[in-house]
């Protein structure tokens, strides 16, 4: 096969973004930079979604994470600003690192080894052409689809919004005096 496999190249670039960004998040001393690394990582994940032919999810990922959640994180970082330069970054650095590495090894052996090469069915995607935005919309609101989880999710969002406002609201009068 003489054709260059661009999807493989794109896959490696996006994986590098996702994992490198993730590494930046957990190791960076400066929390604002950590937020930027988080965005890099989530952008990489959005790229992987495109490769997995879920473009709607990729766009939502960029919109929700970079447009909303990451901005929220930067606000939180700045509101707790005096502590962004902690001298000690980690509790129990080495035990946790070894634990995480062990978990990775376990995942490799337990989950990825069974699908690696052994099962031909998992080697290639099911189909090449997917048009899923309309179908996704139908699946979310149709009776034989996911209308109940959809409603529960919207309820959850409303509850979270009200909860966040109630928790973070500044009601103490003496707070102002500080």
């Amino acid at each position, binding site marked *: 096969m003489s054709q260059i496999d661009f999807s*493989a190249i794109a896959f490696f670039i996006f*994986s590098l973004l*996702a*994992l490198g960004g*993730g*590494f930046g*998040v957990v190791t960076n001393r400066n*929390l604002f930079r*950590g*937020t930027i690394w988080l965005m890099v*990582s*989530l952008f990489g*994940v959005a790229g992987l*979604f495109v*490769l*997995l032919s*879920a473009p709607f*999810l990729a766009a939502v*990922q960029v919109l929700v*994470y970079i447009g*909303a*959640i990451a901005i929220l*994180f930067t606000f*939180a970082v700045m509101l707790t600003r005096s502590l962004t330069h*902690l001298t*000690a*970054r*980690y*509790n*129990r650095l080495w035990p*946790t690192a070894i*634990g995480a590495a062990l*978990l*990775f090894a376990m*995942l490799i052996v337990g*989950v*990825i080894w069974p*699908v690696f090469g052994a099962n031909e069915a*998992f*080697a*290639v*995607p099911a*189909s090449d052409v*997917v048009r899923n935005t309309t*179908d*996704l919309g*139908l*699946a979310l609101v149709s009776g*034989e*689809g*996911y209308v109940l*989880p959809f409603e529960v*999710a919207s309820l*959850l969002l409303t*509850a*979270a919004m009200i*909860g*966040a*406002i109630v*928790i973070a609201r500044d009601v103490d009068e003496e707070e102002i005096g500080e």
Partner: protein
Amino acid sequence: MVPLWMYLTVAAGLFCLGVFGVLSRRNGVAVLMSIELMLNAVNINAVAFWRYNTTIASLTQPAPSELNGIVFAAFLLVVAAAEAAVGLAIIITVYRNRRSVDPEEADTLRG
């Protein structure tokens, strides 16, 4: 084409980075960011398994229930957004009361 196990490896790596961050970081905001990483690893897995699922008859005209991978990922996004909003609100409140964002120090409820 990229085989399934590569996506799973990336997701596993991202998940373990998240686990490491949650267990070891001393800053509540960083812990929340690590949780976001873990949720995203789950999302990659959900979509990848959906994409490589050969039991789906036709992806060009799928039945509503056959889009489960994408639907689950979409719900996970909702959960992630809710979690970030509530989590950050809690961290800011804790910071206001205790001048600290270290999750280890928020131990008033410990018996």
